[in-house]
């Protein structure tokens, strides 16, 4: 059972305040938000920082609910994804990981790279451009989640696609929210 202690130590050393792994639905999203909110409230965090973190959490969680690919491996089917929040002295980090079919990577990567190439003004323009022209997709998204995360973060979206199998990678995303005012 040493893995329990190992996991605990990893969480401590990575400054993680919340980790959830499993199925993601709107109900789990609400529970995770409530738990994280209580934690951040009890730490006496400034309300504008708290709102930005909450904002990024919602977009990240709803992205998983709407877009995580079901992992099919022989007889096994799984929706398991992971969501983590870290708190360091100078920032919060909102992290997520979910299986993605390799065929879906190029489009996702392109949109993340496009967002990372923009500055504050560019992100604002892109947001307005998308909201004017978008329609809500079948999955219920507006195509604005990553743009909004980048705006609330004020930094780059960090992402990787480590390989899981011939067909799948694990889309790993990290978004930082600074705890000091950036302006």
């Amino acid at each position: 059972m040493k893995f329990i202690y190992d996991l605990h130590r990893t969480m401590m050393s990575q400054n993680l305040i919340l980790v959830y792994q499993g199925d993601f639905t709107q109900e789990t999203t609400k529970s995770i938000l409530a738990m994280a909110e209580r934690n951040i409230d009890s730490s006496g965090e400034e309300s504008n920082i708290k709102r930005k973190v909450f904002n990024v959490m919602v977009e990240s969680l709803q992205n998983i609910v709407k877009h995580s690919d079901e992992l099919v491996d022989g007889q096994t089917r799984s929706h398991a994804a992971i969501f983590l929040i870290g708190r360091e002295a100078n920032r919060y980090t909102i992290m997520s990981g979910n299986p993605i079919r390799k065929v879906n990577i190029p489009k996702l990567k392109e949109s993340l790279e496009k967002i990372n190439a923009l500055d504050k003004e560019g992100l604002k323009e892109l947001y307005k451009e998308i909201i004017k022209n978008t329609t809500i997709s079948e999955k219920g998204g507006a195509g604005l989640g990553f743009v909004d995360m980048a705006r609330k973060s004020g930094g780059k979206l960090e992402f990787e696609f480590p390989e899981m199998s011939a067909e799948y990678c694990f889309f790993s995303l990290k978004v930082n929210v600074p705890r000091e005012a950036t302006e």
Partner: protein
Amino acid sequence: MEILNLEGTEDTPKIILDKKNGIFEISGRSLPEDSAEFYRPVLEWIAKYGSEANPSTDFVFKLEYFNTASSKLILDVLSALEDIKGMKIHWYFHEDDEDMEEAGQEFSELVEIPFEFKTY
């Protein structure tokens, strides 16, 4: 006209649309699972109201938080309000919430309706 009255929940806003008493307000949090479905009755109500609107309408947005899928629907609501004569938007934001203030400013740039910004 019938009153549209939706109680707020942890992921949906409180909505009151009351022509007779001149109360038009969307407040609270908006992060429903299906934003298009949630705002459908609101858009339907506004479409009806448009054909028999009061001479002036003060429409209040007092949102604490909304997700991006809701932001698209809020723009749809504003676009529907745009065609109604005598429309004015009152956009409230918490005094230290510059993101909500900026969101209101962006909406005001996307539709041709007068916006008044207020803190609460």
